[in-house]
C-alpha cells in the first residue's frame, strides 16, 4: 500500500510525462515530421475502446457471466472486416464536409438540420455520462485500494480526479476553435496509454498465471469444477445464451464506431484512409492480446480466495493480496490510463457537439447571448467541465449502486441508436431527415425506457413503477417485458425493441417523406447515388456580379463567430480554391461554387447546420440571382438534351474521375517528392564525396610525412610536398621530374630498393623499414618507410604506395640516448654505493654491481627478485616500512641499517610518474661502517678533549684571576701616574706662573723701595725746612712714576694670578662651563709664558673672539698645555726659532682646533704609537710618554671628540681636534 500523497505524486509525474509526449508530438507535427500520422499509431489509438471496463469490468463479467465478456471485443473484430468499406466512406465524407462529430455527420446528411444534430448530441451526452461516470468510479475506487489508510486526502480524491480530467482534456483536446484540425498530442497520449494498459494487464496475467500458480493447469486445479465450468462457458441469468451473445456482439459492433470518442478517433483523426487497412487487423490483435489474461486473472482471483462480488477489482486485488505493491501500482496506472484516454476524447467530442448543436442555436435565438458567439472556445471548455461534472454527480448519486459491468452496456445501447440513421444515410438514398428524426428519437426513448430506467430503478434512485407495472400502468409497456416479450434478458430485450422501432420508423417515415434540397445536394457524396431534382434549362451566366459585395455579404455572418481577420482569411482561402482570387466580377455559377466552398469551410468551425443557417441568413444570392442560377442549370440540361438523372450521373462520373485523377496526382506528387528526395540525397552524397576528397587532398598535401606512389620498377607516380621536402627538392613536381629511378636516385644503396621489393612481394607490406637515402644535394638521411603493394587480378604488383618519414634526428637521438644510457650505466656501476631501482612492491627492476656483489650475486640474478627476500627479517621489515612511508609521504626517507656488523645509510627516493603517482623507487645504500668507527673514535677523543679542556679552562681561569688582579694594580698605577703627571703639569704650571709673577712683583717692590727712599729724603728736607720747589716737583714725579710702575706691575701680577687661578681651578676641579675659546686660549698661553719666554718660538692664535664653547676648559687647558710642551720638548732643537699656530673654527655644532708646529715632525713609524701610554722618544730625558696619551683620553673620553695627528718629518706636526661645541654624552 502506498500513501495517498505518494500515489498522487506518481500520478502527477505520469501525467507530466504524457503532457511532454503530447507537446513533442505537436511540435513534430508542426514541423511536418508527424509521429502520429502512422498506421500503427492510428490502430493503437482506437484502443481507447478498452477503458477501465476492460481492466476491471471484464474480469467481473467473466466471474459473473463466463465468456460473455468476450463479445465486447469480438464484436469490433467482426466489424473490422467492414471498415474498408464503411469507415473509409465515413473518412471521405469527413474530409468533404469537415465533419467533426456524429451529430455533425447526421446534420450534414439530413439537410443540415439543427434539430437532428441536437437530438444526436443529447443521445450521445446521455450515453456518455454513465460511461464517463464508470471511468471516474473506477479511478476513485482503485485509488482508495492502492492508497490505503485513513488519510484525509482520500476524501478529496474524487474532486481532484475531476479537476485533473477537466484540465487534461482542455489542454490536449480543446485548444483551438477548428476541431477538424487533428490533435497529434492527444493521439500520441492515447496511443501511449494503450501500450501502458496492455503492459499492465499482461503483467498481472503473467503474475497470476506464472508467479502464483506456475501455469494454467495448476491454476485450474485450485478451483472447484463448478466454478471453473461457470467461468469457462457462457452463462446468463435469463434468456437464451445465444440471443444474449448475439445482442452483445451487435452492441459491440456498433459501439466501436458510434461511441462518440471512437467516432472521433476512427474518423475525424484519420489522416490517411490507407491506415484503415492496418487498423483492421492490428486493433483486433490488440484486443486478443489484452483479453488473453482476463480469464486467468478471474480464475486466480477466485483461487486466491478473493470475493466473487469484488471480481471487478481482481486485477488490483490479486497483486495487493500477495504483497506486490509495485505491480498493483502499475495496474492502477494502467486502469487510470484506460479511463483517462476515454474521458478526454469523449469530453472533447461531446463539448464540440454541445457547443455547435445546442449552445450555438440557443445563442442564435437569444439576442442577449450574442456576445457568446466570439467565446465559442470558452463555451467548449465549459461543456467539457459540464460533462465531467455531471458524470461525477452521476457516479456519486448512482454509481455506488452498480457493479461496473452494467454501466458500459447501457452506454453501448445508447449509441446503437445512431446506427440506422448513419448507415442508412450513407447506404440508402431514400433516407430522409424526418425518418432519421423519428427513428433516432423513438430509439433513444425506448433505450431510456428499457435499459436506463430499469437500471436506475433497481438502485432505488427513481420510482420503479414503469419497470414493474409498465409505462402509464400499461403492462405491455413494462420496461423489461415490452409487448409481453419475457424470454429475453434485459439487454437483448432493449436491443431488440430499440432496433425494431428505430429501423422501422426510419424506413417507414423516410418512405413517406420527401428529401429537402439540402439533403439532395449532398446525397451523391454520401451515398454515391443521384437525388431527384428538376431543373430548367437556362443560358450560361455571365460575369456581371460584383464579387467584392458578395464577399462582404459572406463575411458578415462569419464575423459573428470569428475575428474579422480570421473570417477574411477563410473567405480568401475559399476564393483561392475556386479560382476567384483577384477577380472583381464573377458569374452566378462561380458564385455558387464559392458559396458552397465557404459553407464547407465554415462548417468546420461551427458545424454544418450552423454554417448553413448563418450563410443562408446572409442573403448572398438575390432573388434574380437565384432564378438565374436555376435557369443556368436548366439551360445546361436543355442544351445537353439529357435527363436530370443522366446529368447527375455524368456529374458523379466526372466527380469520381476528378477524385481518381486527384489521387493519381497525389501519387505523382509523392513520386516527385521521392525523386526530389533522391536527388537531394544524391547531391548530399556528392557533396560528402567532394568534402571527403577535399579532406583527403588536404591530408595528402599537408601531411608532415611523405606520401608516394611508385611503379615496381622504381618510377615515382606521385608524391606529396612533404616527400619532396624530405628529399631536398623544392616541390613535388621537381621531385617527380628529377627522380627517374628511386633505386638509383634516392636510395643510398641500390640493394635497399631490392630489399623493399622483396619484402613487398613476400609479405605485401613493409612496416617501418629504416634505410639510408640521399637528398638532392647528396647528403644522406635515415628514412623510415611504410609501404604496401597494390596488386592486380593476377596478383602481380602494379603499384607501390607508402609513407616516408625522415628519422635522421630520431636515429641520432636514439644513439645519443644509447650513449647516455651507457654513461649512466657506467656511473650506476661505478659508484661505491648500492643503487637499486624497484617497484612499489619491492621488486628489483635494476641493481648495480655494488649492490649485487654485497649479496654475492650478479645484477642479472637479482632483477625480478623482491629485495626484502635478500635482507634479514628485521632489516627487511624496516626497509618495507620505510618504503611504504616514502610512498605515502612521496618524499625521500633516510635511515640507517645494521647488517652483519656493517652499517649502511639508506635513502629511498620515490620516483613520480607524470600523473604525480610514485610507481618506482630508487634506493641508495652507502656503507658507513668506517664512518661509524671514525665517529666512535672521534667521540672518544672528544670525551678526553673535554676533560682536558675543562682542566685547561680551570687553569686559565686561575691565570685570568691573577691577570685581573695585576691589571687592577696597573690601572691604579696608571691612574696614579696620570694624576702625578697632571700634578707635575700643574706643578710646572705653578712654577712657570710663580716665575712670571716674580718679575712684576720684583719691579713693584723696586719701585716701592725707590719711592720709599725718595720719600725719606723729602721728609728729611721738609723737616729741615729746606724743602725746595724743585725737590718737591722731582719727588712728585718720582711718586707718579713709581706709583705707575707699582700699579702696572701689580695689575700684571694680578692678571697672571687670575689667569693661573682660572687654569689651575679648571684643571683641578674639572667642571664644565661656557667660555670664550679665544680668551681662554690666551689665558692658557699666558700660563705658559714662562716656558715660551725662554725660547724664540712664536705662538699665534687664530680664532673668532666670539666663538663660545660649553665644555670642560680644564681639559682643554691640559690639552693645549701638553701640545705646547710637546712641541717645546720634541719639535725644536735648542736655540731654534719655531712657529706654533693654534687655529680654531666652528664646524656646524663642532669646533675644529688645529695645532701645528713647524718642528722636525714625527716619523711615520712612530705616528700611530704617539697616543700609547708611556710611549716616548725621550725616555730618561724628561719624557714620561703620558702626555699625548692623557691628551687622547681627554679628547675622546672627557670632551667626546676626536684627535688626529699628521706629520711630515722635517716639516712639522699638526694635531686636528674636533670637539663638540656643546656638551654631549659620550
Amino acid at each position, binding site marked *: 500500500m502506498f500513501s495517498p500523497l505518494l500515489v498522487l505524486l506518481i500520478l502527477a509525474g505520469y501525467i507530466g510525462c504524457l503532457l511532454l509526449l503530447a507537446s513533442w508530438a505537436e511540435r513534430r507535427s508542426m514541423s511536418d515530421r508527424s509521429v502520429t500520422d502512422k498506421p500503427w499509431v492510428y490502430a493503437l489509438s482506437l484502443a481507447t475502446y478498452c477503458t477501465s471496463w476492460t481492466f476491471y469490468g471484464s474480469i467481473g463479467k467473466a466471474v459473473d457471466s463466463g465468456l460473455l465478456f468476450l463479445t465486447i471485443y469480438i464484436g469490433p473484430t467482426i466489424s473490422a472486416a467492414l471498415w474498408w468499406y464503411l469507415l473509409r466512406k465515413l473518412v471521405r465524407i469527413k474530409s468533404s464536409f469537415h465533419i467533426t462529430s456524429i451529430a455533425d455527420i447526421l446534420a450534414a446528411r439530413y439537410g443540415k438540420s439543427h434539430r437532428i444534430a441536437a437530438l444526436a448530441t443529447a443521445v450521445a451526452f446521455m450515453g456518455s455520462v454513465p460511461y464517463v461516470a464508470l471511468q471516474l468510479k473506477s479511478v476513485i475506487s482503485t485509488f482508495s485500494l492502492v492508497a490505503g489508510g485513513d488519510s484525509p486526502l482520500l476524501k478529496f480524491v474524487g474532486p481532484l480526479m475531476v479537476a485533473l480530467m477537466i484540465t487534461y482534456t482542455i489542454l490536449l483536446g480543446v485548444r483551438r476553435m477548428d476541431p477538424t484540425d487533428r490533435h497529434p498530442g492527444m493521439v500520441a497520449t492515447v496511443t501511449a496509454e494503450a501500450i501502458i494498459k496492455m503492459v499492465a494487464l499482461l503483467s498481472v496475467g503473467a503474475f497470476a498465471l506464472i508467479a502464483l500458480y506456475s501455469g494454467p493447469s495448476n491454476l485450474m486445479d485450485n478451483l472447484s469444477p463448478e466454478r471453473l465450468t461457470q467461468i469457462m462457458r457462457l452463462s446468463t441469468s435469463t434468456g437464451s445464451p445465444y440471443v444474449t451473445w448475439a445482442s452483445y456482439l451487435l452492441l459491440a459492433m456498433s459501439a466501436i464506431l458510434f461511441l462518440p470518442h471512437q467516432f472521433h478517433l476512427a474518423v475525424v483523426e484519420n489522416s490517411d484512409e490507407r491506415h484503415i487497412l492496418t487498423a483492421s487487423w492490428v486493433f483486433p490483435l490488440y484486443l486478443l492480446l489484452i483479453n488473453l489474461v482476463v480469464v486467468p486473472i478471474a480464475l486466480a482471483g477466485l483461487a486466491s480466495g478473493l470475493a466473487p462480488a469484488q471480481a471487478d477489482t481482481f486485477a488490483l486485488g490479486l497483486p495487493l493480496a500477495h504483497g506486490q505493491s509495485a505491480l498493483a501500482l502499475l495496474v492502477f496506472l494502467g486502469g487510470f490510463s484506460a479511463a483517462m484516454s476515454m474521458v478526454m476524447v469523449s469530453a472533447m467530442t461531446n463539448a464540440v457537439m454541445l457547443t455547435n448543436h445546442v449552445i450555438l442555436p440557443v445563442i442564435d435565438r437569444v439576442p442577449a447571448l450574442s456576445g457568446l458567439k466570439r467565446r465559442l472556445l470558452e463555451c467548449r471548455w465549459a461543456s467539457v467541465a459540464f460533462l465531467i461534472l455531471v458524470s461525477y454527480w452521476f457516479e456519486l448519486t448512482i454509481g455506488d449502486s452498480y457493479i461496473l459491468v452494467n454501466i458500459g452496456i447501457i452506454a453501448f445501447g445508447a449509441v446503437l441508436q445512431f446506427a440506422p440513421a448513419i448507415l442508412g444515410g450513407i447506404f440508402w438514398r431514400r433516407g430522409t431527415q424526418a425518418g432519421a428524426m423519428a427513428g433516432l428519437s423513438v430509439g433513444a426513448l425506448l433505450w431510456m425506457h428499457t435499459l436506463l430506467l430499469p437500471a436506475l430503478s433497481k438502485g432505488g434512485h427513481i420510482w420503479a413503477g414503469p419497470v414493474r407495472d409498465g409505462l402509464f400502468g400499461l403492462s405491455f409497456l413494462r420496461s423489461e417485458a415490452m409487448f409481453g416479450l419475457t424470454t429475453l434478458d434485459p439487454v437483448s430485450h432493449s436491443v431488440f425493441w430499440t432496433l425494431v422501432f428505430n429501423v422501422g420508423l426510419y424506413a417507414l417515415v423516410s418512405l413517406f417523406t420527401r428529401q429537402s434540397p439540402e439533403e439532395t445536394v449532398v446525397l451523391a457524396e454520401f451515398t454515391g447515388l443521384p437525388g431527384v431534382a428538376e431543373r430548367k434549362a437556362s443560358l450560361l451566366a455571365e460575369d456581371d456580379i460584383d464579387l467584392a459585395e458578395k464577399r462582404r455579404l459572406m463575411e458578415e455572418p462569419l464575423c459573428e463567430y470569428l475575428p474579422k481577420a480570421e473570417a477574411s482569411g477563410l473567405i480568401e482561402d475559399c476564393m483561392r480554391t475556386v479560382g476567384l482570387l483577384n477577380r472583381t466580377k464573377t458569374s452566378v455559377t462561380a458564385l455558387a461554387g464559392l458559396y458552397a466552398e465557404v459553407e464547407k469551410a465554415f462548417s468546420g468551425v461551427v458545424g454544418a447546420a450552423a454554417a448553413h443557417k448563418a450563410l443562408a441568413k446572409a442573403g448572398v444570392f438575390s432573388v434574380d440571382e437565384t432564378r438565374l442560377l436555376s435557369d443556368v442549370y436548366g439551360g445546361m440540361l436543355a442544351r445537353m438534351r439529357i435527363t436530370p438523372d443522366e446529368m447527375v450521373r455524368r456529374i458523379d462520373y466526372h466527380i*469520381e474521375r476528378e477524385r481518381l485523377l486527384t489521387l493519381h496526382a497525389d501519387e505523382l506528387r509523392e513520386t516527385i517528392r521521392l525523386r526530389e528526395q533522391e536527388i537531394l540525397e544524391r547531391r548530399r552524397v556528392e557533396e560528402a564525396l567532394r568534402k571527403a576528397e577535399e579532406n583527403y587532398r588536404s591530408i595528402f598535401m599537408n601531411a608532415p610525412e611523405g606520401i608516394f606512389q611508385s611503379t615496381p620498377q622504381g618510377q615515382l607516380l606521385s608524391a606529396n610536398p612533404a616527400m619532396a621536402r624530405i628529399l631536398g627538392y623544392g616541390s613535388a613536381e621537381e621531385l617527380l621530374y628529377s627522380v627517374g629511378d628511386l633505386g638509383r636516385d634516392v636510395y643510398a644503396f641500390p640493394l635497399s630498393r631490392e630489399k623493399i621489393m622483396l619484402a613487398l612481394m613476400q609479405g605485401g607490406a613493409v612496416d617501418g623499414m629504416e634505410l639510408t637515402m640521399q637528398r638532392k644535394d647528396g647528403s644522406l638521411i635515415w628514412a623510415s618507410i611504410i609501404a604496401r603493394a597494390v596488386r592486380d587480378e593476377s596478383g602481380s604488383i602494379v603499384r607501390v604506395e607508402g609513407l616516408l618519414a625522415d628519422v635522421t634526428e630520431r636515429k641520432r637521438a636514439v644513439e645519443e640516448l644509447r650513449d647516455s644510457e651507457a654513461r649512466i650505466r657506467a656511473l650506476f656501476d661505478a659508484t661505491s654505493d648500492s643503487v637499486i631501482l624497484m617497484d612499489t612492491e619491492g621488486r628489483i627492476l635494476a641493481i648495480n654491481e655494488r649492490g649485487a656483489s654485497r649479496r654475492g650475486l650478479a645484477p642479472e640474478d637479482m632483477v625480478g627478485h623482491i629485495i626484502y627476500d635478500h635482507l634479514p627479517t628485521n632489516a627487511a621489515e624496516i626497509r618495507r616500512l620505510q618504503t611504504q612511508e616514502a610512498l605515502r609521504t612521496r618524499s625521500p626517507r633516510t635511515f640507517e641499517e645494521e647488517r652483519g656488523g656493517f652499517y649502511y645509510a639508506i635513502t629511498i627516493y620515490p620516483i613520480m610518474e607524470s600523473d604525480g603517482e610514485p610507481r618506482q623507487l630508487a634506493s641508495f645504500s652507502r656503507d658507513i661502517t668506517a664512518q661509524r668507527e671514525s665517529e666512535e673514535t672521534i667521540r672518544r677523543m672528544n670525551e678526553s678533549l673535554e676533560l682536558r679542556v675543562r682542566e685547561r679552562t680551570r687553569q686559565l681561569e686561575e691565570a685570568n684571576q691573577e691577570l685581573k688582579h695585576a691589571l687592577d694594580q696597573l690601572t691604579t698605577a696608571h691612574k696614579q701616574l696620570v694624576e702625578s703627571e697632571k700634578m707635575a703639569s700643574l706643578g710646572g704650571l705653578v712654577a712657570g706662573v710663580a716665575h712670571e709673577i716674580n718679575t712684576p712683583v720684583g719691579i713693584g717692590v723696586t719701585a716701592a723701595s725707590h719711592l720709599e727712599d725718595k720719600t725719606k729724603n723729602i721728609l728729611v728736607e721738609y723737616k729741615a725746612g729746606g724743602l725746595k720747589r724743585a725737590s718737591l716737583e722731582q719727588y712728585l714725579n718720582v711718586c707718579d712714576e713709581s706709583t705707575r710702575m707699582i700699579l702696572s706691575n701689580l695689575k700684571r701680577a694680578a692678571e697672571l694670578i687670575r689667569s693661573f687661578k682660572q687654569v689651575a681651578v679648571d684643571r683641578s676641579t674639572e667642571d664644565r662651563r661656557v667660555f670664550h675659546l679665544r680668551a681662554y686660549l690666551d689665558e692658557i698661553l699666558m700660563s705658559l709664558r714662562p716656558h715660551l719666554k725662554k725660547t724664540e718660538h712664536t705662538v699665534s692664535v687664530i680664532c673668532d673672539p666670539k666663538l663660545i664653547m660649553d665644555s670642560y676648559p680644564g681639559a682643554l687647558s691640559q690639552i693645549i698645555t701638553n701640545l705646547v710642551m710637546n712641541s717645546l720638548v720634541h719639535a725644536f732643537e735648542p736655540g731654534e726659532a719655531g712657529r706654533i699656530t693654534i687655529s680654531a673654527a666652528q664646524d656646524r655644532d663642532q669646533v675644529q682646533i688645529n695645532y701645528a708646529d713647524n718642528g722636525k715632525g714625527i716619523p711615520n713609524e712612530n705616528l700611530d704609537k704617539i697616543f700609547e701610554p708611556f710611549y716616548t722618544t725621550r725616555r730618561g730625558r724628561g719624557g714620561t710618554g703620558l702626555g699625548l696619551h692623557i691628551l687622547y683620553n681627554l679628547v675622546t673620553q672627557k670632551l667626546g671628540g676626536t684627535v688626529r695627528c699628521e706629520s711630515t718629518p722635517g716639516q712639522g706636526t699638526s694635531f686636528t681636534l674636533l670637539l663638540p661645541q656643546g656638551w654631549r654624552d659620550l
Partner: protein
Amino acid sequence: MVNCWGRPGMFSFVFAALLLVFNWPVLSIPEGGELLAWLFGAWALAIALLRFAARGAQDACADPALAQPQQDQPHQDAGARDV
C-alpha cells in the same frame, strides 16, 4: 500482381466468415473449456484473415489498373461503388 486477397468483395467474405465462426460455437454450446479455446482460436484466425485481406486491398490500391477500374467511361453506378 495482386493475389486473390485483393479482389473486390474479399472483406465482405471475411465478414461473413467471421459472423459464422463466432456464432457457431454459441449455437452448439460446446462443453467445458472447448468454448474458450474455440473462441480464441477463431479470434486468431480472424485476425489472420483480416491481415491477408488488408494486404490484398493494399496491393490492389497500389495497382493503378485496379485502383481506377472505370476511369474513362461513365458507368451507371459511377460514384456509387467504392473501389
